[in-house]
């Protein structure tokens, strides 16, 4: 079409089509006119409906334990603390007894305290990549908003600890890979990593 105003009218046609596509009767009408019509409304009404996230969706890290919370996989090697790009992980440990020797639980050293400042964490997943023990994994819990900066946004060890079953539930593919890897490792004696100097 050559006359001036045709482009304008065509543009209005596009918006009107979209307008129709958002109504069921509009879609019926469009199909009646033998036009393709898809569901036009793409909004997810958040608090009522939640977006379905991909399995790999990552938010903040958590610590995995097998069975009971004292059987955590973390040995307090501090690699993640060192590698964390925004430096949001703080580990105290490994736990020592009175003589200054590393304490062990289930044959492993463990951290006295493990804190993640989630208001600094940028969910990059590097801590998971570098962890030699698969002790830290990414959670997909994202409703953590709070008005308290220090009270509830610095997660401590208790808040971070989650069972392996939880991990298996939220990320089945990844968890089964990790489980297989750990099972292959198990017969060997667990190496104890001393904290490495940077």
């Amino acid at each position, binding site marked *: 079409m050559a006359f001036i105003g045709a482009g304008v009218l065509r543009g209005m046609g596009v918006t009107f089509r979209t307008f129709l596509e958002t109504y069921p009767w509009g879609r019926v009408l469009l199909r009646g006119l033998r036009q393709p019509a898809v569901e036009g*409304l793409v*909004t997810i*009404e958040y608090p009522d409906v939640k977006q379905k996230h991909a399995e790999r969706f990552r938010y903040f890290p958590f610590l995995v334990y097998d069975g009971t919370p004292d059987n955590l996989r973390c040995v307090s090697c501090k690699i993640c603390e060192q590698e964390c790009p925004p430096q949001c992980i703080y580990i105290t440990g490994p736990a020592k007894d009175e003589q200054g020797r590393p304490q062990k639980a289930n044959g492993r050293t463990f951290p006295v305290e493990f804190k993640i400042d989630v208001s600094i964490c940028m969910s990059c997943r590097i801590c998971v990549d570098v962890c030699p023990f698969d002790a830290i994994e990414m959670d997909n819990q994202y409703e953590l908003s709070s008005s308290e900066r220090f009270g509830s946004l610095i997660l401590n060890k208790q808040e971070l600890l989650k069972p392996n079953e939880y991990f298996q539930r939220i990320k089945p593919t990844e968890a089964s890979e990790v489980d297989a890897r750990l099972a292959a490792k198990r017969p060997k004696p667990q190496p104890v990593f001393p904290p490495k100097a940077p």
Partner: protein
Amino acid sequence: MSLPSLETLFVKPAILLRDLFPESARPWVSIGIAIGAIAAVAPLIMMYLTWIERKLIARMQNRFGPTRVGVYGLLQPMADGLKMLIKEDIAPQGADRLLHAMAPILAVAPAILLFAVLPFGRYLIAADLNVGLLYFFAISSISAYAIFMGGWASRSKFSILGAMRGVAQVISYEVPGVLSAVVVIMIAGTMSTVGIVEAQAQRWFIATPWGFVAGIIFFLSGVAEVNRTPFDMPEAESELVAGFHTEYSGMKFALWYMAEFLEAFAVCAFAVTFFLGGWQGPAVPFWVLTVLGSALIATARKLSLPVRVVATALLLAAGLVWIKEPIPSWMWFLAKTYALVFVLVWLRGTFPRLRVDQLMGLAWKFLLPMALINILAAGLWWFWRDSFIGWFLSAAILALSYWLLILANHPARRFEAALSSRG
């Protein structure tokens, strides 16, 4: 339910109310009733216009629009109003406080005054002035003062830029607006809005060549005068933050919005009055239309069968209802007005805005000459009014001048397949 009950739904109670008073006070009482009705209805219209706009635009953008407050977000305007009321009222430092506070009031007052001469239905008019059309133009141009007052008093660069644009735009677009309405006066022979509506009993003015052109020019200038997309230059939010009302907050800001929406509604309503037959239904009996329409739909091959069946049935049913009880005049009026409101929103949902110089160019170089030629076309049509010659001549003159004006006016590069590719 008796037949005329719907038609006189609003008139009857008013008369009953008036008759409660002694004879001598009745003219004053009826004026009071009209004023009261308009004052009560105007904010409601404005509030729900915002709701309608938000809903419709949202739908054009794959969204829901307001849904949270009330069913379908129907209470959203109330919530907004409440929010506006309790917000802090800020006047910038160094602003002229008096003018700053007066400007939004000055904007709202004429917008409400416009409703005085609006024939909502057969007997639904507050004041049937014999210069109704002139009154409309006179009152609506007051908004230029309000805009400039607000922009100037704000003491902000963005405001003053917006105000300058606003004044230039409102004044410029008044010219083609008035000239396009001249043909209405010519043909209707009256300036009273009621008279104009009655003159369209046989044929709506939009159904003539000159009326079509004049209607479009009138509507476009109206859109420009109320600063709405694609002519929302004075408040261009992507350039001037918010233009002349950048420095307004709270209820003053709400008043600006109220003025804008009321004027937008008034422009649609007056366009309906002047060109779309006002409160008149189509001149052709409605049942004829429905029968014709249903026949057309029933035989349309392009439609799928269920749609054809349902649509035909609906149309026929509507025709039957119509024969039994005519649609009341005010309903026609509102339906047509809201159809135009939909167009207004639709424009806003689709287009970017023009640039300020292009906007002026459109007014002075295109709409003005077109409106002048249209007067000639209307004269020719009137001269040979009942023959084919009048129709043909006026249509031909308009088409030719449209084409010539486009040729003379279109400096933008045509789109060519200029994008070569290599690789």
